[in-house]
């Protein structure tokens, strides 16, 4: 009992002392979410598409010796630049104009305060990825005791709706904020438009770093274009053009999940433009095509008809009944190995 009291008091004093730090940490961490698609920080951080950013502040450019920087970055590094609050803020505002030709295909963080919070967050990690501020962790662990005046049970309102009378009515603004799903018949498409040329610019800046200049994919990132007539090949290439049944899925998915690590950052018109460009990359439309909520449903993707309902129940082997199962002497000759996993041993190391 007394132990908890002590923690409660300690927590309050810690909160006063470190509340600013803890807040910068929380907000900075959340803002760093936009970077996490490509960068990691912390003790176990590994290079991803971008280098590990442990201890990057106050260091010369290119902190990671074992990371393969672009030529543009190498050149910038040679000029002796280092990461100060100022250079980092300018860089993060518009990485691709700060270092033209960088691999960091990221449009930038417009808001200066947000940039400062990200920089403060980066400063929390030393070069080994160790946190400089154990204090903020402690404040999180030792939650202060909140004493709120308690309402009488009879003072709570009970809603009218439903069976158990739980929850509250959702407001239209709330539904609109979350309900962004689009269906093949066009239900859910927002008004707007965008052309493939604009889409190409957006794509080069925000998508090409992972998905390749022409949607061909880089490394193991997904391929978005090509693969026509490969579905019956030994190694089919499933892309928007060769496989996806509906264009609405492209619009819906890009709007809800891309760019990876910065979801919901594109405007509705941006998504129209990028969708138009992805159609162009898949040879479905011309370079100057404009996609809009009006003409969206006119587009039919070539593979739509090749999707069929689940008919696994008709598969021949399913008619075998339990009584027909062979239990003894089911084959004349002994079993012989025809293939081993060891031959193409791809099992990860223990």
């Amino acid at each position, binding site marked *: 009992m007394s132990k908890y009291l002590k923690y409660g008091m300690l927590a309050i004093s810690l909160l006063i002392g470190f509340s600013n730090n803890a807040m910068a940490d929380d907000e900075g961490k959340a803002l760093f979410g936009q970077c996490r698609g490509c960068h990691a920080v912390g003790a176990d951080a590994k290079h991803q598409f971008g280098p590990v950013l442990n201890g990057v502040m106050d260091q010369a450019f290119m902190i990671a010796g074992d990371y393969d920087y672009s030529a543009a970055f190498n050149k910038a590094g040679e000029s002796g630049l280092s990461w100060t609050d100022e250079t980092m803020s300018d860089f993060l505002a518009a990485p691709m104009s700060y270092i033209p030709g960088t691999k960091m295909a990221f449009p930038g963080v417009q808001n200066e305060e947000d940039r400062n919070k990200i920089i403060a967050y980066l400063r929390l990690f030393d070069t080994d990825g160790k946190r400089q501020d154990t204090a903020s962790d402690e404040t999180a662990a030792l939650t202060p005791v909140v004493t709120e005046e308690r309402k009488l049970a009879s003072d709570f309102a009970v809603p009218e709706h439903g069976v158990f009378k739980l929850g509250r*009515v959702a407001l239209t603004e709330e539904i609109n904020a979350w309900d962004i799903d689009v269906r093949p018949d066009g239900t859910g498409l927002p008004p707007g438009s965008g052309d493939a040329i604009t889409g190409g610019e957006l794509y080069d800046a925000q998508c090409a770093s992972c998905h390749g200049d022409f949607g061909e994919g880089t490394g193991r990132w997904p391929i978005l274009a090509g693969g026509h007539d490969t579905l019956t090949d030994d190694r089919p290439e499933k892309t928007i053009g060769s496989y996806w049944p509906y264009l609405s*899925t492209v619009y819906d998915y890009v709007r809800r999940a891309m760019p990876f690590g910065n979801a919901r950052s594109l405007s509705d018109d941006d998504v129209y433009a990028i969708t138009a460009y992805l159609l162009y990359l898949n040879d479905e439309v011309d370079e100057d095509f404009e996609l809009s909520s009006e003409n969206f449903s006119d587009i039919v993707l070539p593979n739509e008809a090749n999707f069929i309902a689940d008919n696994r129940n008709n598969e021949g*082997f399913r008619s075998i009944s339990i009584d027909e199962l062979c239990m003894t002497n089911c084959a004349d000759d002994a079993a012989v190995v*025809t293939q081993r996993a060891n031959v193409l041993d791809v099992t990860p190391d223990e």
Partner: protein
Amino acid sequence: MKIDKGDIEKQERRKLLKTGLAVSTTVGASLAGVKSATASTPDPLITEIQDWNRYLGDGVDARPYGMPSKHEAEAVRRDVAWLTADPKASVNFTPLHKLEGIITPNGLCFERHHGGIAEIAPSEHRLMINGLVDTPLVFTMEDIARFPRENRLYFLECAANTGMEWRGAQLNGCQFTHGMVHNVMYTGVKLKHILDEAGVKASGKWLLPEGADASHMTRSIPIEKGLDDCLVVTHMNGEALRPEQGYPLRLVVPGWEGNMWVKWLRRIEVGDKPWHHREETSKYTDLLEDGTARRFTWEMDVKSVITNPSPQAPINHGRGHTVLTGIAWSGHGRIKRVDVTVDGGRNWTTARMDPHSFSKSLHRFYYDFDWDGSELFLQSRAIDEFGNVQPTKKQLREVRGVNSIYHNNSIQTWHVKQDGVTENVEIS
């Protein structure tokens, strides 16, 4: 019940006695080579006082949340780095060869994320029901906790489990070939209760659950399934959901592919048609040899795998009494029977089922046998209560080709060599 149990125990004792006898005679017959059953020098672990016999260990304040013994460091989830481009849209695997019984410990349930693990404070989480309902609603976690709740044990299998094995034996270990399955006791609310609260309109035929993570995961689910046995859950194996399993709220879709069990569940829309979103068009559709692709292949078919012995758990004890064990499951219901073969399917024996049998849950089977030291080809074949029989690889490939990725429920073969080393193979 009691009589049954006694009978089983008696049988076990008789079996043990028999095999015990066999061991002592074979040891007597040839003492050379294999580890002797008698010791020539006293075991110091017995004759000497060990540290842990003398010094005090940690007190009750040392481990506020207990972790496994440090000697169990091998029992961890593992990933296959080359499978996907980024660990935040990737998968790791449950170490099935390290587990017993039918419950998967929370920290070992495999993970599959599409935008990393969302870390959400329950006070900041909301569940919205909208679309074709009388009253669109928003619930807090406190509201969810006030619905009548229940406990259910269900397996969750990723549709891509065993997907790497379509073209042939690839990965050496049941953790990698079959580890995208786990079995958990969930606590939660019938989805029906939550939908009834909003009042589904007669035109409402489909549900679209959506996650709050950076992938905003969505899947279309027919309303019949939603009203039948789906749950909205807050707890797994008695404690709050783990962040990587969707804390604070996840959808449970019993028997159906894992991708539909939307984590960090924040919204369910009711509609009159399916949405055909990315995870039910580009992914989770099954390409067949003729170029057509099946969609909405929701149910997970009857399946089993031997977890010990297996490539990561070879036989180290030499010939003699050997315990073979494994797991079986079916998205249709209960497992009725599992047959085991040690000669690659020439002769089959029906395995002993552990009595804990729940619908759409993992089942545990055992086969105790006297290994004579010759090479073995181990396979298991599960049969569910509706008579669905686990197919061979050949049967599946004949009807589907090798490019389906998903829903590979075929019979797995392990080759145990004379030194006990075990490999993933395909056989004639």
